[in-house]
């Protein structure tokens, strides 16, 4: 807008003044966008032009993807990506199955089975496929990846379609030679594209506040313009004959119409003062943030997880500084605090507990109670089997010993249930040692692995059968392969919380195996056998309090009639078009009843490394951590204890639905307390607004809160409750699909790139490999980003205000005519060249205290939470000094025009004065930056000196040339004229020092009497530069994970009996690493190269205190 104004004659400035910076700013962002677009375009091109075989007549013709139309019959070969959403017709595999990898959709690397309809199995050859005739009815395109309803009408027969027959775009074909399919959705209608549309964009609160600041600046601009405009109306008068105001005068200076003069001058002044709005600020900030992300966060070795070879990843560059202001962290438990490395740990069969391990949580509990439990490694039988997913030892049931137990039948059912009731895919050679299991959740894999170790080795799955190699009871020691026919699978989902299979034994016995959450299973148990239920219940609680994840196993024998009649309903439900899921659930209810409890399993969910230390640090930093988990209350509390979220000094309140209790607690107003909000109260509270306030008010005074039994939606509601209700900055961290809504609801979403797939990471703003890296991310990077951006913004604010105010003072002495003080090019290059680089350098390199000190004094983080550096008060101080400095600049230099300077007695003109003033401004503003930054590196010097030099170079060249453009030769030779006088040098020395005098005084008084925390810490550690090195050494040692690993392993046996901590001496640690080394992917060459390059960068970044 201002640029347009500046092209009109009322403008005091040449259009170039506004156009140049604006276009430079636009250019930079354009280049950035164009670069991204270009990459995207190339990507698109390569995708669009990828070829796929389409059936044309009776031949396969290679056609580009972009020509694909709905209804085309296509052939996809192995390892190719599906070009569109396809209906799966047939495959080269005999039973119409194919295997797909969905890593692009959800990051899960396990193979999934898709099965074609039996009807269409034959359409595999082009001749046959060309005869395919049918009609597909399906739902409208939608973004749900896991549902699909539709029908295939073939030969007047309606065949229901399920997600099982749909191959989604973005997946790839594996282990199958080729498949034939029909295109059902293409392009933007594909599910993956529908999903990619709605990415919620987040803006940081700092930026929102920045908008307010910009508004304030606009207000200032407007006020200044109004003052100037009124002045111009009053000033303009015919008596100034030298202005030639008699006769015909253009409107802007026509003294006969002062109102018009004022209005027009107003616009003039807007263009003149437009420099007060820092246009380049946004671009600078974007640049700074971008570099912060890509260079610092993504490359930080301290957040590099060597074992999984995952560095931290900033997926958006918008929220860096938000990380420095987080006050509430909402954390998922599973996979976030814990490793989500499930290990089968204990079980209870028929009312008998098996398994001798002691969990870390129990150790932690014992420690709290004051007793020490010896590490169990030493006592374990040396023959105990360690492998992925299995950490169980009990001689009573291992190696077939279960036959001698009092309840061998129960045991057998238990193991069969484990071996049959799952959706796991076996992979690798069909021997117990080399087989690995692909499962959607690690729990399942752990359970199947357990079955294997108990002698029920599941090794092959066909679409209809599961083959288990059993060490059978009846025939001692012999091994028998048994094929169980799987008739139906009632799949697991979060509402059902259970999973069942109906299978037929080779002897014709029909049985339903079910496993699920305890409350769900208990509701559906048949009458009788109370003792067993009761003891199992006790065991469940015992397992829960040990921090174990429990599942109940049950079975039910079915008669043929029962099954047949039910199966009919099931098929009906399966083929319904509408509400298929709901109907399926209803049908499942019909058969999942009168179950007989077999027992329950307990799986240990290990804490991630360094979680307690991280949580302690974070709470010391004043961050309140809420754990939101779907687990039972006991489990949740125990995990909370184990990871030092709660300790014995804290008062605890368990809040369930009663509101009175809440009130009571609130009245007490004790600041140190823990509240646990159970499911019911949350549910109610979220529904009821008054309760919501109560809950919020209560929770906000708690140090930490644990919410149990919350669903994914409730997680998001809790997050937005705090976000909106308390107006604090929130951060959500989670790893699973169930955390996605929470991650999106909070200000900052962090995904753990862990075991549960990539959905959380895809939805997140930052991805880290381990919870403990949160310390680095928040306390180091977040804090620095926040400090830097605050500095950048306030500094931008200051330098533009200073610059514009000098112009404003000049206006008063030009009869409010809007004459510009500075040359066009000075003004336009001020922000772009003369003062641009140093502030970016500060935005990148400034740090108050080193990374290790940031972590050593987590309390420093509170400055970010309180937003100490971007308060209006801080801005007011800057504004005050901008005001002061501008006065100094203007009046000190303007005074120079009064006399002759130098022995020649000649007088300096307007442009001499303005050039002098501008020189002073550039020098001062750049020096002021040096005063503002905490750590001065050579980059700072370089950029500041560079900017000042740039100015002098520019003016030397600029004033030496004459151009033929439409430009007044105002500044011709000015600098040389100036430099021929002593006065210039004296002024150049005097003005910046006087200008900075005030700031200096303020800063020293502030530092002396009211030091910021970081300043004190700087002082404390001023004399120990060595400390940086020593602290960083262990971090650098990350570089050789192999060595570290072997070191750790070698240390294990000797230290075991002394430790009760949990980071490195946990029972499964050795085996964990052993398996990692055996199974782990070898590091790729580029990876080594990259780490080497990181190594080189490391000292550069950290070596400068």
């Amino acid at each position: 807008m201002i640029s347009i104004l500046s092209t009109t004659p009322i403008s005091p400035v040449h259009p170039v003044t506004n156009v140049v910076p604006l276009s430079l700013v636009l250019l930079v962002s354009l280049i950035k966008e164009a670069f991204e677009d270009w990459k995207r375009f190339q990507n698109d091109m390569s995708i669009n032009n990828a070829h796929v075989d389409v059936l044309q007549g009776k031949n396969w013709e290679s056609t580009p993807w972009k020509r694909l139309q709905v209804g085309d019959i296509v052939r996809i070969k192995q390892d190719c990506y599906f070009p569109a959403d396809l209906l799966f017709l047939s495959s080269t595999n005999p039973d119409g199955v194919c295997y797909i990898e969905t890593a692009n959709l959800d990051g899960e690397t396990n193979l999934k089975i898709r099965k074609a309809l039996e009807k269409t199995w034959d359409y595999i050859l082009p001749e046959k496929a060309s005869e395919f005739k049918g009609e597909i009815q399906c739902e409208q395109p939608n973004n749900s990846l896991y549902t699909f309803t539709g029908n295939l009408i073939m030969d007047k027969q309606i065949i229901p379609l399920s997600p099982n027959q749909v191959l989604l775009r973005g997946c790839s074909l594996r282990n199958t030679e080729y498949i034939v399919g029909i295109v059902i959705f293409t392009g933007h209608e594909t599910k993956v594209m529908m999903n990619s549309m709605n990415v919620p964009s987040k803006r940081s609160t700092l930026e929102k506040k920045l908008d307010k600041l910009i508004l304030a600046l606009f207000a200032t601009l407007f006020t200044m313009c109004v003052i100037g405009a009124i002045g111009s109306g009053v000033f303009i008068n015919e008596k100034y004959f030298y202005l030639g105001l008699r006769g015909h005068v253009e409107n802007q200076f026509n003294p006969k119409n002062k109102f018009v003069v004022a209005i027009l001058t107003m616009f003039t002044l807007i263009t003149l003062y437009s420099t007060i709005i820092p246009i380049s600020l946004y671009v600078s900030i974007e640049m700074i943030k971008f570099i912060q992300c890509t260079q610092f966060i993504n490359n930080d070795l301290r957040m590099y997880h060597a074992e999984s070879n995952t560095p931290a990843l900033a997926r958006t560059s918008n929220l860096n500084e938000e990380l420095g202001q987080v006050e509430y962290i909402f954390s998922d438990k599973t996979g976030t605090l814990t490793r989500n490395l499930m290990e089968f740990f204990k079980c209870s069969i028929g009312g008998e507990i098996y398994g001798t391990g002691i969990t870390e949580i129990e150790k932690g509990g014992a420690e709290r109670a004051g007793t020490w439990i010896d590490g169990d490694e030493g006592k374990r039988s040396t023959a105990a089997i360690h492998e992925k997913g299995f950490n169980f030892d009990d001689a009573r049931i291992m190696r077939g010993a279960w036959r001698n137990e009092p309840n061998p039948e129960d045991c057998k059912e238990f193991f069969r249930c484990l071996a049959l009731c799952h959706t796991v895919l076996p992979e690798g050679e069909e021997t117990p040692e080399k087989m690995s299991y692909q499962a959607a959740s690690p729990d399942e894999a752990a359970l199947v692995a357990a079955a294997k170790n108990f002698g029920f080795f599941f090794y092959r799955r066909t679409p209809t059968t599961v083959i288990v190699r059993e060490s059978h009871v009846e025939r001692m020691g012999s091994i028998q392969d048994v094929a169980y026919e799987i008739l139906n699978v009632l799949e697991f989902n979060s509402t059902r919380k259970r999973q069942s299979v109906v299978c037929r034994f080779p002897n014709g016995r029909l049985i339903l195996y079910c496993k699920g959450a305890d409350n769900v299973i208990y509701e559906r148990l048949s009458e009788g056998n109370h003792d067993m239920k009761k003891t199992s219940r006790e065991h469940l609680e015992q397992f829960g309090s040990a921090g174990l994840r429990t599942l109940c196993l049950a079975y039910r024998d079915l008669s043929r009639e029962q099954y047949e009649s039910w199966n009919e309903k099931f098929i009906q439900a399966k083929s319904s078009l509408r509400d298929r899921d709901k109907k399926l659930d209803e049908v499942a209810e019909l058969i999942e009843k009168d179950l007989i409890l077999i027992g329950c399993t307990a799986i240990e969910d290990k804490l991630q490394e360094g979680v307690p230390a991280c949580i302690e640090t974070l709470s010391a930093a004043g961050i309140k951590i809420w754990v939101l988990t779907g687990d039972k209350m006991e489990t949740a509390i125990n995990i909370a204890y184990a990871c030092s979220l709660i300790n014995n000094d804290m008062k605890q309140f368990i809040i369930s639905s009663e509101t009175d209790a809440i009130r009571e607690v609130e009245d007490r107003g004790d600041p140190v307390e823990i509240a646990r909000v159970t499911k019911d109260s949350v549910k109610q509270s979220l529904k009821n607004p008054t309760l919501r306030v109560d809950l919020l008010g209560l929770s906000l005074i708690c140090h930490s809160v644990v919410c149990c039994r919350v669903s994914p939606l409730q997680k998001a509601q809790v997050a937005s409750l705090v976000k909106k209700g308390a107006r604090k900055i929130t951060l959500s961290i989670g790893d699973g699909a169930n955390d996605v809504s929470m991650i999106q609801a909070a200000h900052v979403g962090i995904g753990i790139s862990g075991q549960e797939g990539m959905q959380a990471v895809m939805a997140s703003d930052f991805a880290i490999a381990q919870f403990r890296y949160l310390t680095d991310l928040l306390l180091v990077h977040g804090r620095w980003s926040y400090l830097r951006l605050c500095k950048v913004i306030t500094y931008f604010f200051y330098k533009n205000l200073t610059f514009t105010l000098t112009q404003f003072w000049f206006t008063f002495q030009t009869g409010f005519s809007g004459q510009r003080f500075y040359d066009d090019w000075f003004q336009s290059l001020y922000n772009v060249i003369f003062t641009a680089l140093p502030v970016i350098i500060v935005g990148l390199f400034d740090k108050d205290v080193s990374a290790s000190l940031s972590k050593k004094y987590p309390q420093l983080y509170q400055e970010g939470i309180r937003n100490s550096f971007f308060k209006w008060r801080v801005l007011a101080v800057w504004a005050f000094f901008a005001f002061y400095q501008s006065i100094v600049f203007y009046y000190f230099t303007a005074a120079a025009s009064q006399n002759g300077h130098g022995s020649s007695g000649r007088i300096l003109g307007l442009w001499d004065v303005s050039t002098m003033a501008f020189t002073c401004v550039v020098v001062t503003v750049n020096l002021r930056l040096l005063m503002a930054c905490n750590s001065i590196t050579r980059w700072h010097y370089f950029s500041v000196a560079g900017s000042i030099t740039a100015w002098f170079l520019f003016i030397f060249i600029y004033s030496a040339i004459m151009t033929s453009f439409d430009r007044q030769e105002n500044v011709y030779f000015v600098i040389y004229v100036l430099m021929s006088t002593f006065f210039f040098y004296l002024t150049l020395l005097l003005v910046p020092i006087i200008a900075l005098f005030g700031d200096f005084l303020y800063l020293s008084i502030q530092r002396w009497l009211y030091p910021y925390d970081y300043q004190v810490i700087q002082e404390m550690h001023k004399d120990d530069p060595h400390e940086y090195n020593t602290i960083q050494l262990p971090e650098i040692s990350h570089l050789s994970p192999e060595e570290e690993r072997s070191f750790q392993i070698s240390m294990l046996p000797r230290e075991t009996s002394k430790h009760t901590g949990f980071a490195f001496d946990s029972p499964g640690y050795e085996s964990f690493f052993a398996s990692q080394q055996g199974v782990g992917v070898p590091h790729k060459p580029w990876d080594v190269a990259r780490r080497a390059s990181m190594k080189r960068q490391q000292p550069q970044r950290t070596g400068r205190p």
Partner: protein
Amino acid sequence: MQVISVFLLVGIIFVPIGLVSLMASRKVVEVVDRYDDACVPDNMTDKLAYIQNSTIPKTCTRTLKVPKDMNSPIFVYYQLDNFYQNHRRYVKSRSDTQLRDANKANDTSTCDPEGMINGTAIVPCGLIAWSIFNDTYAFVHNSKTLTVNKSDISWKSDREHKFGSNVFPKNFQKGALIGGKALDPNLPLSKQEDLIVWMRTAALPTFRKLYGRILVDLKQNDTITVTLENNYNTYSFGGKKKLVLSTSTWLGGKNDFLGLAYLTVGALCFFLAFTFTLLYLIKPRKLGDSNYLSWNRSPAGR
């Protein structure tokens, strides 16, 4: 303490500079004489009518007394007040190309309203040139005329590059309104130094312009008679006119301001250094005292 040493350092540097520049400024002898009111005959109450009436003789005689010895060169300035040479309409009303290049005489688009007269271009065009100052001064000392050397009063760069040596005044001051001095049409613009000086517009509404130099030493208490032609109209806008005689030093004319500023800052620095030292002694804060950490100051933590 860093702060104290910085203050001391600044003080140590600034005070001598201040003293030197103040001394330089004090050495300058300056005679200022305001003559706009005094040169209007007593019987003329309407000053504007007086100045606009070309029939009334404008000659006026002033007597100046030299307060101190003045060594050559003595600079003669005129000082105008309330004259907005920096007004936007004024500043842009010139054509640099026209001034520089004889072939670009018609380049008067920026010169409005003094660009053309009767369809032909004015050289030099524009309000600035048009309103050129036209009072003249003649100095007599002891009945001996003091010649005013009017050469080299403009900046060399202006003379050589901005005003062409082959550009001659044309149609200048031919309009109905005469703004100021008429220029000799036979002298190229690069030789019209009064014009060049005038056209280096001043930054502030109060400004001095160099008129010429007197290359004669004057003694204390000498009296100089100035015969001036009071032609220039400052009466319409109430501006003052002053005649200034001044000597010069390495620093330039009389300018106590700079020296005083240096001295003040220097003194202030000493004072602050002193205060901080006192503060340091009275209320010492141990560097890096962890008691100052906010979480240590208030035990509750916030």
